[in-house]
């Protein structure tokens, strides 16, 4: 898939300095569906680079192929770049390597938990129960509210494609869990 190209703005800054400015502006764009995280923390933002012809190229990758938030993210990235005074920004969408929840940083995981969303379970988490699922490597998350491991899945698919709905049997709080992917 060739990326939709977005060219915006009036000529203000160019080159490496522009790339740096755009990078910090774009890195702060929030994911429209998981608003506690920026697209950088989620691993959606892959690269910001300055081309020889003066363009700045922002490279992003979708969490899921059909993720409808991508169009919004493109618009927000374009707007952020424009606000950062960038002359020409090209937004490129890449699919390879495919996005994985392994790209979530520890800081991002902590932010998710603080927002009441259980982050994906790390494969090396000794506390995570392995579920008797047909799919390998699916692990039960801990309750983001009280930390209990006594949790049960309510629905494999949640309100957004990347989340599942779980419930804590200890404090009875329903919670979202970002699926391992």
């Amino acid at each position, binding site marked *: *898939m*060739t990326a939709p190209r977005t060219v915006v703005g009036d000529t203000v800054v160019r080159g490496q300095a522009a790339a740096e400015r755009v990078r910090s502006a774009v890195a702060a764009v929030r994911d429209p569906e998981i608003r506690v995280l920026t697209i950088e923390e989620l691993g959606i933002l892959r690269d910001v680079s300055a081309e020889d012809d003066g363009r700045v190229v922002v490279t992003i990758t979708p969490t899921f192929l*059909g993720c*409808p938030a991508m169009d919004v993210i493109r618009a927000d990235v374009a707007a952020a770049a424009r606000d950062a005074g960038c002359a020409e920004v090209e937004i490129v969408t890449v699919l390879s390597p495919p996005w994985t929840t392994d790209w979530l940083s520890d800081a991002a995981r902590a932010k998710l938990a603080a927002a009441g969303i259980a982050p994906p379970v790390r494969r090396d988490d000794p506390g995570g129960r392995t579920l008797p699922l047909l799919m390998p490597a699916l692990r039960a998350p801990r309750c983001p509210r009280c930390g209990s491991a006594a949790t049960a899945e*309510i*629905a*494999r698919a*949640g309100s957004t*494609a990347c989340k599942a709905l779980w419930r804590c049997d200890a404090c009875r709080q329903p919670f979202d869990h970002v699926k391992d*992917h």
Partner: protein
Amino acid sequence: MTAPMTTTGPDLRDYVLRLGDDALVAAQRVAGWCTRAPQFEEDVALANIALDLLGQARALLTYAGELEGLGRDEDALAFGRDEHEFRNVQLVELPDDDFATAIAKMLFFGVYQRLLYTGLSRAADPTLAGIAAKAAKETAYHVDHAVSWTLRLGDGTAESHRRMQAAVDHVWPYTHELFEPGPPPAAAGPGADPAALRGPWCREVEQVLAEATLRRPEDGWAPTGGRSGVHTEAFGHLLAEMQYVYRAHPGARW
């Protein structure tokens, strides 16, 4: 992401169009379950699967349009073509008469898609490989979902067993078309030969059917034609509904 033009040609465009049409038509059928599923969890899960399939379709149709070089985007291809120009297999266009039929289709098509995409993720063409690698991960969830329900319906109540067996019997003949011989374009790589997928597909599906206490139907009647634009009567209705707003406003942007 740009594909090296040396490896592309009309045959790769046709091949990508097939994949895109399969995903698009499957998405349209699965999305039809919204608000009609047996429980709310299933409404959410099926919407999720429809969204995944639609995402695959958009990526593939966009790429097919680029390979074609006639300026057609995903929407022009999805909404602007007539029935005989669609290259999807007939399996995905079959109406979902009941939930068992939907699950049988999802199982057969999902296992095929996962095997195919896994093979295509090593394709020489980097764009196709990228789409396939992403789609393979998502399709694994669809197969998991279909297998879970096949087991429950097959090995649930007498009524559900009867319905699930009927659905398997009904859909089975249409699975042959998935594996019709015809080597894929060189750019798609050796892992994408449909004929070579039939063996692993049968082994996986047969295992699931056996565990679900369902009988594997005999091979016999093998309806075909989708890849050359010959479809079932139901397909015209699907397209009429899907395309009418777009076609009623030529040139409009949405």
